[in-house]
């Protein structure tokens, strides 16, 4: 705690001559001005931390289709990832026999070895409307682990030197190169010493051809290899160095820096074993993870896209008391609507418990009356899946939630591919 309080003082001591990150500010302002705000708050897929599918599910124009888009790779200035050894342990996934869960979905329990961020056995279910065979879940998760392993590893070598960061306080131009992993696997169309052309995913094929150099490394079966071992038809992942050119100009209040991408060079081409579809959204989006709900471990919550029905960010009580203790627990639960009457909503969770939500207004009728048209006339009804985030006393066991306790209510969706019409869970 003391360490963090010290850091707060350091932040507070910033001189006014130090300008903040203009790129970050511009991104926020663009997000505010643009009607197609993309939000990290709701995700359909979790292949990569940064390049996850991000869904916009609030305030869409009429008849807008929720956009499922790969985030930020080319848009936001990324950061390089922690350095790891060149070769990594091959991740493996094992799944148990599929079963049908209480929500009518086919599900499996998967266990992992050498898979980053996956250690405990985890439950995945196949989304409604999917044509996936349960045996494919293992391949989807395998591909996911391989992409994550490459992400963690990339950035091991040092990118080229760039000018001192004090250049942001000096008028002029400078360049910065960052190493990033492309989060989708694709099929090789052609490859030679200077270029790589890829195909495969409708929405995520990069501008072809990509630039290869004599410094590009080739990896096959998790060890260094040569270019001739990678052929048309192979599935590959790749890592590339992206160079940004910055221009710093003096303004009345300080300095402002803008940037453009001037170059992209592939540093590593990694041949992988599965068909390219398993490394991209076409397959990855067919499953959803089901896990214990935060604060309600006896219930399970499925991860996925959702529409905000209600949000509440009160200004109090949110501050710690004099002992630094925060007086509440943050919890979540999902359940099927079993009753709706005005401002009271009852949902039944996976454990069979019935939660009663008391909201300040009739959020169901409000949505159906005023916002349904934005979402292809989807309406909230009995039998629909709702997620609630709430804050209660740490010792609370009550299943009745009041307006001051509820933080957000979502209508859970079942979204698979970009361009799909909105479908409730």
């Amino acid at each position, binding site marked *: *705690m003391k360490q*963090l*309080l*010290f*850091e*707060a*003082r*350091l*932040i*507070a*001591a*910033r001189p006014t001559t*130090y*300008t*903040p*990150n203009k790129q*970050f*500010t511009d*991104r*926020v*302002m663009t*997000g*505010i*001005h643009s009607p197609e*705000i993309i*939000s*990290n*708050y709701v995700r359909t897929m*979790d292949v990569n*931390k*940064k390049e996850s599918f991000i869904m916009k599910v609030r305030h869409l124009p009429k008849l807008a289709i929720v956009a499922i888009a790969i985030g*930020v790779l080319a848009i936001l200035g*990324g*950061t*390089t*990832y*922690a350095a790891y050894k060149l070769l990594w342990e091959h991740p493996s996934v094992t799944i148990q026999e599929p079963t049908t869960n209480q929500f009518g979905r086919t599900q499996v329990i998967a266990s992992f070895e050498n898979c980053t*961020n996956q250690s405990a056995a*985890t439950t995945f279910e196949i989304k409604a409307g999917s044509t996936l065979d349960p045996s494919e879940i293992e391949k989807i998760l395998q591909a996911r682990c391989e992409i994550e392993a490459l992400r963690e590893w990339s950035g091991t070598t*040092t*990118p080229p*030197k*760039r000018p*001192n*960061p*004090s250049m942001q306080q000096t008028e002029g131009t400078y360049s*910065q190169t*960052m190493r990033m992993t492309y989060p989708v696997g694709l099929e090789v169309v052609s490859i030679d010493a200077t270029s790589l052309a890829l195909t495969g995913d409708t929405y995520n094929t990069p501008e072809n051809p990509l630039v290869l150099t004599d410094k590009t490394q080739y990896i096959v079966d998790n060890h260094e290899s040569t270019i001739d071992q990678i052929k048309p038809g192979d599935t590959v992942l790749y890592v590339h160095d992206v160079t940004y050119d910055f221009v710093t100009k003096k303004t009345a209040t300080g300095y402002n820096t803008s940037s453009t991408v001037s170059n992209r060079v592939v540093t590593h081409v990694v041949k992988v074993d599965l068909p390219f579809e398993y490394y991209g959204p076409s397959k990855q989006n067919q499953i959803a993870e089901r*896990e214990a709900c*935060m604060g309600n471990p006896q219930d399970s919550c499925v*991860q996925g896209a959702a529409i905000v029905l209600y*949000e*509440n*960010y009160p*200004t*109090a009580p*949110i*501050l*710690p008391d004099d002992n630094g203790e925060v007086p509440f627990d*943050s919890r979540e639960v999902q359940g099927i609507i079993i009753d709706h009457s005005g401002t009271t909503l009852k949902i039944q969770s996976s454990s069979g418990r019935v939660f009663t939500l008391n909201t300040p207004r009739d959020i169901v009728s409000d949505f159906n009356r005023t916002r349904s048209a934005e979402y292809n006339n989807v309406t909230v009804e009995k039998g629909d899946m709702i997620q609630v985030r709430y804050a209660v006393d740490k010792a609370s066991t009550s299943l009745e939630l009041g307006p001051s306790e509820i933080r957000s209510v979502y209508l859970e969706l079942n979204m698979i591919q970009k361009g799909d019409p909105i479908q409730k869970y």
Partner: protein
Amino acid sequence: MSMMDEEKCIAKILAGDTDAYRELVERYQTGLIIHCENILNDRQEGEDVAQDAFIKAYENLKNFSASKARFSTWLYRIATNMCIDTLRRNRRKIPIEHIEQHLEATVPKHIEKDEIAHLQKCIEELEPPKYAEIIKAYFWEGKSYQELATTYNTTTGTIGTWMRRAKHQLKEKLS
């Protein structure tokens, strides 16, 4: 920006001057990114969540009551909730009480002018000079450890070591 200035800024935004929100973003972005980075243990995710928190705060600004709390406290609470969501969706576990500690610790503090001057002077006096540079780059310019590692042609681990030494030296100067 004093609380009164902040209230005026918020009033302008609610009256339709959207661009006035830039002032709040510029003021709080560095601390908020560090706050999110500390919780998520990932710089890029921290920036992504901080960005979304600003957007969400803007969208909910009409619900904010300046008489009940500072904008920064409210903003940080929004960001903390979003960090919790991110941790949940990335299947990472962290005790919630640690997150609450982060909330209190990195919300911007009001410190007196003479303390500011003293802090700035102590930072400039750090030896070797690169310690001062990385303190300023991280806490004032919002640079990440990875960006600093690139600048100094070293690893994030080394940057972490320099940062610890720099902060230790600073604390001794300030005590």
